[in-house]
């Protein structure tokens, strides 16, 4: 076994919090990784493509002046290898205090189109990958009686709308899964945060068929808000905050009306 420990040691005077970011090269993921790097975290950045991960790690490490970010190329749909990857990452980081799942994909079907292949992909990445990772992370945090979990879901999970049934379903299920985890783990000292972004200016919004951007925030603003939620150990956070009120109204639109509206 070669010594895998490239992260500098954690000492009482130079303590390091340790985090894993799944989906680290996406818009919000990368912004959040940079933010956490600036806050002194050591981190494992996980995504599909090694090359873009390395670019991001190099940038964060250069900024920090030492190795704080390590790249791990892994697809969230490789469910079987997650257990091994997790224990390897925790050993290399020397611990784990914060787990972040921000991996997500979106496809925009036409208003009358049904595409099961795309729906399957969205459910696999947005929901099943998160469940697979969290099934490994949750028991560790529960046993350690500490830790924080951040799941990035979406306002799209709050109601099923006409535009994108598959995406709505994947996010609704992930929101619900996170809520269950919160109810299971809070009593064990673990904080579970559900982030519900509205519209964030990332590549998602430039895809063909994407809706007209309204009330958008930048990925950096979203990362700042998520960091605040982590610091304050919040529970459910809309990004931007205005979406809390919008979704409050939308959640209460009765079905006989909701069936008739065009959004």
């Amino acid at each position: 076994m070669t010594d895998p420990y490239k992260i500098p040691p954690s000492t009482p005077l130079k303590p390091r919090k340790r985090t894993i970011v799944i989906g680290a090269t996406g818009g919000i993921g990368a912004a959040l990784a940079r933010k956490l790097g600036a806050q002194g975290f050591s981190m494992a950045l996980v995504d599909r493509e090694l090359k873009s991960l390395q670019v991001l790690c190099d940038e964060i490490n250069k900024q920090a002046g030492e190795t704080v970010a390590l790249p791990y190329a892994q697809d969230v749909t490789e469910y079987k290898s997650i257990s091994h990857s997790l224990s390897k990452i925790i050993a290399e980081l020397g611990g784990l205090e914060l787990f972040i799942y921000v991996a997500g994909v979106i496809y925009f079907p036409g208003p009358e189109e049904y595409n099961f292949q795309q729906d399957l992909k969205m459910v696999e990445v947005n929901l099943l990958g998160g469940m697979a990772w969290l099934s490994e992370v949750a028991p560790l945090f529960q046993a350690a009686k500490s830790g924080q979990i951040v799941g990035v879901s979406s306002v799209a999970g709050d109601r099923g709308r006409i535009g994108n049934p598959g995406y709505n379903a994947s996010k609704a299920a992930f929101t619900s899964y996170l809520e269950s985890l919160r109810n299971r783990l809070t009593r064990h000292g673990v904080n579970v945060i559900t982030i519900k972004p509205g519209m964030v200016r990332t590549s998602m919004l430039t895809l063909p068929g994407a809706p007209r951007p309204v009330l958008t925030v930048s990925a950096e603003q979203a990362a700042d808000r998520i960091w605040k939620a982590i610091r304050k150990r919040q529970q459910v956070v809309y990004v931007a905050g205005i979406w809390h009120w919008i979704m409050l109204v939308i959640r209460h639109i009765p079905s006989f009306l909701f069936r008739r509206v065009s959004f």
Partner: protein
Amino acid sequence: MTSDFTQLENFGHSLKSPSYVIQPHTAEDIHQAFRYARKAGLTVAARGGGRSYNDAALNGGGIILDSSVMNRILKWDKVKGRVVCEPGVTLQQLWQRVLPDGWWPPVVSGTMFTTLGGCLAANIHGKNNFRMGPIGEHVLEFTAMLPSGARVLCSPSRNADLFHSMIGGFGLLGIFLSITLQMKKMQSGLLEVHAWPTRTLKDQLTSLEQGAPRFDYIVGWLDTVTIGHGQIHAANYLHSGQDPEPQKTMQLSYQNLPSRLFGVFPKSLLHYFMTPFMTNIGVWGINTAKYVASLRSHTFRQPHAAFHFLLDYVPFWEQSYGRAGLIQYQSFLPKETALAAWTEMLALAKARGLPAYLGVTKRHRPDKFLLTHALDGFSLALDFKVTDSNRSRLSALLQEFDRIVLNAGGRFYFAKNSETTKATAQKFYGKQTLSKFLKLKKRCDPQRILQSDLYRRVFAE
């Protein structure tokens, strides 16, 4: 085998490190843990009482072998004073077993909650290091398991290289399975203690040096807030005839530390009342009061347990340092350079507004163990409170301390210092010693299964 992912801490509560904790009951369990670790690609470290101030018994993200269930005293020969113990036996278990028969462990730490496995791994010293050396000099033999599962029997004459490197080797070469120790014969359960004040650091070091030949134990308390005020406690064993009732004073009921203050107040709650005083001003007040009270030189008789286990006098005292905990910085300096170096260090700490809240001095002599921390001179242990706002300033201060100590030919002790870097360790151990240790590591543990946070901070290549 079941393991629990547990957030472990150092004794000072200033470091957190989660690990998969396994409690072996037998040597076979330890072997199985090694096999499991190899299969899972994980590392293994041993942990005893968890009394180290640093990361010696932590292994973040790896396996921790918690020795607390392997705590049987296997054999006790009260004629020869020889005891065979499993590694999880604590000093408390040991002295309580041997004292009623008229014996006492020749070397003990300031707390009785350390385990023998941990004591050997750190090669602990007591307030009699200048006379009795470290605990390793009283080990007749031990058996240890290497990560391959092989067992080795070591004594000063058999596998002598492993004997002198596993003791003081911080669990990085093998795991102790059983330890045979020689106890020291006692004629009384009491010590005759002499206490006197010292006005300056120079005074204190002179007292230690001149007092050592006359006493069995000697230790100094140093007020590092005012710099120099202090008190010496020196003690001698009682010889036969000096104690009219040795049978009575060696009974456990005579030795046990009272659990209540003035007979009423539970001492386990005392640390809550200490917390508000753990500030620069609070400690100044306490130290000044303590010094004034110590101005009267006096002599008294005290049970062994009360004299030795000062750290256990107030249970949970380390929690009074608050949320971010404490660290201890202990340096060992040759007797020629100690005064100048510590004077410079303490002045620096005072100038930076970072006084140590407790200072303890001792007298030492060299020993033959490979990773020894002792030398012909003195040690000064300083306790610092850690807060979120003083971390970087304290870190800068300790880096300067390291420089001063290295220049003065000093050494460090890895049951204590938490910030020492690989480069510093290389300097004071010397390249030759360190490469000798790493060669033994390669021989005993070629796959580097035995690792701790300390190993990765200081020893790993």
